[in-house]
């Protein structure tokens, strides 16, 4: 994906360029490096302020690794993560030192998947939700209590709950607590890794509604990492589809769902069981398995599983090209046929 942020009308909040993360494969007593797992291999995308970008793909495709690189929970191997700070300057998160990152930590926060493992069971809600304020040195105790009360109210919990411990709450309530904690420092960018996949259907709808409501009230920007396409479709403005460490398609949600421009996206959509017995969706499924990112296939990584593959696909690596305004695909055949 080309184009500099200066050209575009809306300057993106986050501009990820050629992001790479390789994990070494070591062998033997001396732990010699014999190869690399290319978990994230040249990913480009932008996230505009106030929008939700959904990052989807199967397990092992690198979506979580990419999001952890952006948070600098792990250090990327290469590429740039350009972030526009509250002050208006653009910094490359990929090369900042821990000390330089510290002031930015309040601006970028995370919502975790597991509402049971991500809260400290020995700390009350006040301490769990107020901890980001404490570690970032925001406010005194009185102010923290007021802020936590405000946050709990914001996510639909009663402020009186703040002296209770996480075990007293259900999965959906705990996920609300986790969201309150992520919002404690008034972040601008929130990375949500599978925020509803551990929740029951009816609770899932409540949390999705909460995320949408908070986004419009607080002007939040979301990077949503998820595998459930119906969830991603419901709350994302744009969708990025990942396969074996690379983006294969990126575009506006409605467009992608109306006419996917990559056979993998189409296969993912077909694999979602429709909640209607009159629509049969489990026939004609994608065969085979996701290749290992340590030894990906030649040419297009998807060609061994692709029903449309031609000779060219196994030899020539497709470019990530713009097929319509703001709609990118990594497929030789895109535009020539409907998938």
């Amino acid at each position, binding site marked *: 994906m080309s184009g500099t942020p200066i050209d575009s009308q809306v300057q993106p909040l986050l501009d990820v360029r050629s992001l790479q993360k390789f994990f070494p494969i070591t062998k033997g007593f001396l732990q010699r490096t014999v190869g690399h797992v290319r978990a994230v291999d040249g990913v480009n995308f932008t996230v505009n302020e106030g929008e939700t970008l959904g990052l989807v793909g*199967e*397990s092992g495709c690198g979506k979580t690794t990419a999001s952890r690189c952006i948070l600098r929970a792990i250090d990327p191997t290469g590429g740039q993560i350009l972030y526009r700070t509250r002050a208006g300057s653009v910094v490359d998160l990929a090369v900042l030192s821990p000390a330089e990152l510290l002031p930015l930590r309040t601006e970028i926060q995370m919502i975790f998947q597991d509402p049971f493992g991500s809260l400290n069971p020995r700390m009350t809600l006040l301490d769990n939700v107020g901890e980001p304020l404490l570690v970032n040195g925001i406010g005194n105790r009185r102010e923290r209590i007021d802020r936590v009360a405000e946050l709990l109210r914001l996510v639909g919990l009663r402020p009186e709950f703040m002296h209770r411990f996480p075990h007293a709450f*259900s*999965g*959906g*309530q705990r996920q609300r607590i986790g969201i309150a904690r992520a919002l404690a420092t008034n972040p601008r960018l929130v990375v949500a890794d599978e925020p509803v996949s551990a929740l*029951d*259907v*009816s*609770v*899932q*709808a*409540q949390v*999705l*509604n909460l995320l*949408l*409501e908070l986004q419009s009230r607080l002007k939040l920007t979301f990077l949503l990492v998820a*595998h*459930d*396409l*119906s*969830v991603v*479709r*419901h*709350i*994302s*403005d744009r969708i990025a589809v990942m396969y074996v460490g690379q983006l294969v398609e990126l575009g506006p*949600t*409605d467009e992608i*769902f109306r006419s996917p421009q990559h056979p993998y996206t189409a*296969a*993912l*959509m*077909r*694999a*979602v*069981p*429709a*909640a*209607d*017995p*009159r*629509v*049969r*969706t*489990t*026939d004609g*499924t*994608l*065969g085979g*398995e996701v290749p290992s990112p340590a030894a990906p296939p030649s040419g297009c990584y998807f060609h061994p599983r692709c029903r449309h593959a031609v000779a060219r696909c196994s030899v020539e690596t497709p470019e990530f090209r713009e097929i319509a305004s703001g709609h990118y695909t990594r497929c030789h055949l895109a535009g020539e046929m409907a998938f």
Partner: protein
Amino acid sequence: MTADADTPLLSVRDLKISFALDEGLVRAVDGTSFDVMPGQVLGVVGESGCGKSVTMKAILQLVERPGRITSGEIHFRRRDGGGAIDLARLPPRGPDMRDIRGGEIALIPQEPMAAFSPVHTVGDQIIEAILLHGHHWQTDRKLSRGEARDITVRLFRDVGISMPEQRVDAYSWQLSGGLRQRAMIAMALSCKPRLLIADEPTTAIDVTTQAQVLGLLRDLQAKYNTAIIFITHDLGVIAQMASYVVVMYLGRVVEEGPVDVIFHAPKHPYTRALLRSIPSLYGATRVALPVISGALPHPFNRPSGCSFHPRCPDRMARCSVAVPSHQPVGPQHLASCFLHHDLAEPA
């Protein structure tokens, strides 16, 4: 075998299971009844805590202390055709139950990672089961280990595992999630069960792998005519797999009917609310989803009357006092709701 297609293979009647905890008695299952016909795929829907998993454990007599089946019957027609026996009365560790468990009723658990032993090969674990229940394959003599291995390889091929001869010697941690779930299905089928209980069999795996596993289960069901109880909270999976659906809420069946009726003409307010609350691939995006108001009540303070009434948009004065009974509201369609009939459970 004189299998009568109109007689249920399994019939659960007014099953009650409670857990005696320090804090008090939790009635996890509170009078559940349903039937499974031979060769039928029954879908059981409900949220966590509705009692669907513990009901299935009760069928296999695997309810652990402090849980206990307090009353009710679980009639199962055995392969030998000697009429139905009540599984709830059988001693959990007795020879009959051990023969039924795995031999006639098999379970596909939710997490295939936890279900296989990591220190034995998957093949050895399946061979062990086949040798244990060998008389379902070969009635006149004992199966040899070699024969059991051949059966395992054949099953692996049936469930779509490539290179089955090599894969039987693999350990579970060497297999991917999809392969592990396939191996689990091969194990469940290894003794030719008449009833397969699949407890959230695809929750832990990816959507493309899920589609493969669901397709596989449907093919195998058609091939062997095995009855399947499919438990899941994913309504999409239910719509695609089940022919008859049972909806559970707080330990009771609140509605049941043919899959098309449940999805297109649901009667119970809970079923309707549940169906509305799921995001689909076709609906409007970025709008608030209709939700079920309130939260699941804690099992210690179960609401009086109809247990759904505090969250029900259509509740009436009567709902908080009397428990609606499970009554027919259409052909093969039953619901426990005063909106559709006036009959209450005897107090």
